[in-house]
């Protein structure tokens, strides 16, 4: 079952004719994803390695039944690309673009509140349901189908976690990179709720980092609602305050957004948090074991 995407997802790539869009559009297709269309305004009628290109997302929806959009549009036009997908009837938009102005995302975020489309990202690596469908730039070969849901604000750190999980025999139901920007379409809580209801997911691994309060909010939600074991890791314990650590959203400001507070909040909610990034698979196994023991006791 997995969440958000599976082998039936029909993908349109907004920005397919650009170098990243083309490269990753074709890599997703190689993985087995159904990449049915591309959109680049002014380039309708072209085709990229057999994939038809349209001027508008509406045509891709109407003529190719696209329901998921992968967005590789440069920052100045990315917000508009997301809005266009929302109005064209796309179910799920995954925006890879990094560097979209915050003011544009404030408006997009508000507009999507009135629409049925879900946005993942921006500034994210996308998502993958191993063995079925990939929408994004994640390296395919480290993933294995299995029972662990992964949700993360990061890119390469997620790959590190996934590789550890796969090597430990823990495959993944779906891995979702929600993005490193201060404003993102889908939160930890949204994804946790989906994993909670997904029959294929037995436990969740959560990767957070400094900045904002999304991990603290997730911790409260987990305590009140989560029926499955959760383990995690928070990056940035040693990050100096007031400095933006690569991601636009990764900054400790005025005493808030600190890694120590996030780790404490998650542990308070029963989440197994890794002491360091080499122990990610171990804490996941530990969380699964203790849930199993708790399950037998009751």
């Amino acid at each position, binding site marked *: 079952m997995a969440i958000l995407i599976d082998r039936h997802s029909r993908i349109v790539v907004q920005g397919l004719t650009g170098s990243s869009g083309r490269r990753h559009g074709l890599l997703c297709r190689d993985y087995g994803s159904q990449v049915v269309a591309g959109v680049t305004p002014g380039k309708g009628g072209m085709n990229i390695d057999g994939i038809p290109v349209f001027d508008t997302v509406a045509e891709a929806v109407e003529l190719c039944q696209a329901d998921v959009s992968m967005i590789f549009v440069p920052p100045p036009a990315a917000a508009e690309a997301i809005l266009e997908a929302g109005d064209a009837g796309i179910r799920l938009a995954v925006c890879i673009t990094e560097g979209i102005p915050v003011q544009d995302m404030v408006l997009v975020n508000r507009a999507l509140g009135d629409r049925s489309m879900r946005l993942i990202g921006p500034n994210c690596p996308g998502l993958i349901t191993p063995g079925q469908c990939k929408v994004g730039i994640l390296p395919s070969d480290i993933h294995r189908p299995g029972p662990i849901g992964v949700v993360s604000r990061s890119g390469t750190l997620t790959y590190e976690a996934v590789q550890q999980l796969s090597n430990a025999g823990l495959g993944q139901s779906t891995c979702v990179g929600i993005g490193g920007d201060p404003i993102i379409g889908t939160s930890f809580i949204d994804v946790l709720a989906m994993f909670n209801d997904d029959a294929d997911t037995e436990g969740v691994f959560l990767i957070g980092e400094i900045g904002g309060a*999304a991990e603290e909010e997730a911790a409260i939600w987990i305590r009140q609602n989560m029926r499955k074991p959760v383990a995690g890791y928070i990056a940035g314990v040693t990050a100096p305050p007031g400095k933006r650590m690569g991601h636009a959203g990764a900054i400790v400001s005025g005493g808030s957004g600190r890694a120590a507070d996030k780790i404490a909040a998650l542990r308070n909610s029963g989440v197994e948090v890794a002491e360091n990034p080499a122990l990610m698979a171990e804490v996941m196994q530990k969380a699964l074991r203790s849930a199993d023991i708790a399950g037998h006791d009751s």
Partner: protein
Amino acid sequence: MKLHEYQAKELFHRYGIAVPHSHLVRSIEETGQAADALAGSCIVKAQIHAGGRGKVGGVVRVKTSRQARDAARRLLHRPLVTAQTGPHGLPVNSLLVEEIIPVARELYLSLTLDRSSGRYCLIASAQGGVDIEQTARNTPERVSRLTIDPLIGLRAYHARGVARFLGLDGPLAKEAVELILALNRCFLDRDASLVEINPLVVTEEGHLLAMDAKVSIDDSALFRQKEVADWRDETQFDPLEVRAARSDIAYIKMDGRIGCLVNGAGLAMATLDMLSECGGKPANFLDVGGGADQDKVVEAFRILLEDPAVEGILVNIFGGIMRCDLIAASLIAAAKEVGCSLPIVVRMAGARRKEGRQLLEQAELNIVWQDKLASAAAAIVRQLSPAP
């Protein structure tokens, strides 16, 4: 991107927000002349990208132009260390010489992003001139937070409500509404991530005036904020940070001696955490990014080697978009070009890891290969430890 106080006040002035009369000066001579123009009595304020200036003598009230010159002699062209600058401080290259204004009340006003709601919010308090976060913690009823619906925007009725909360009435309330709306226009027009007036003062003459000004611009919007982007003061950054930014490399100077080169911000933070866990101290945060090419990796490597504090290097790459063999080739090219003799520990995982390892082992460099993050961090820490 932070603006200096004088730049923020220049912006405020253009939007019709009253600020004190002032002169920006860069020498002792100019400071004396500016003080003379204000009849001697004035405030001399060091212009750096950090707060906490008042507590360490960076904001000086003087009575004569002689005292102003003394203040300038003490402040100019040396670093000022405040609670917010870190131990090395920030260089003071200019001073703002301002008229003294008799104050009746001090208030607080700011606009910023509320990440939880994904909207901008207007924060106001009748208690100005102090740390707003402390006020919010201790006496939350004295701080008003108004979340703005971006489809409606900040309207005059919102501003009237805030003026009332601040205890302003009559002509002052009217002035406050105009000021709040002007501040909002400035915030939106300039893609700011923060505009803050602390204190916003009611003068003894009964007018509102921005006594201090703090403005930060959203880095992601600089492509469409050309004028403000040109105001960047590179002296307020570490020279290596400035150089890295030119190549679009995310780099932050830190205090240790282990140089770090990583792809991806999250993995880079995790690598620093891993190093600390092993008892090592990172010299920097460095994320070469996802789609880095050879030139970028070579430049990143050069930046690490230019830092005199660096005694060893830890490279941690997870190959995805970026292939390990490409990174390996770049490392070899860079090390040969700059003649690196420092110990280097390389850990690679993911796409074309084996090919990367092969390249590095064939190159005649002081490189130790490790398969795991934990052992890589431990290896570089061990190499830099004094022999027993």
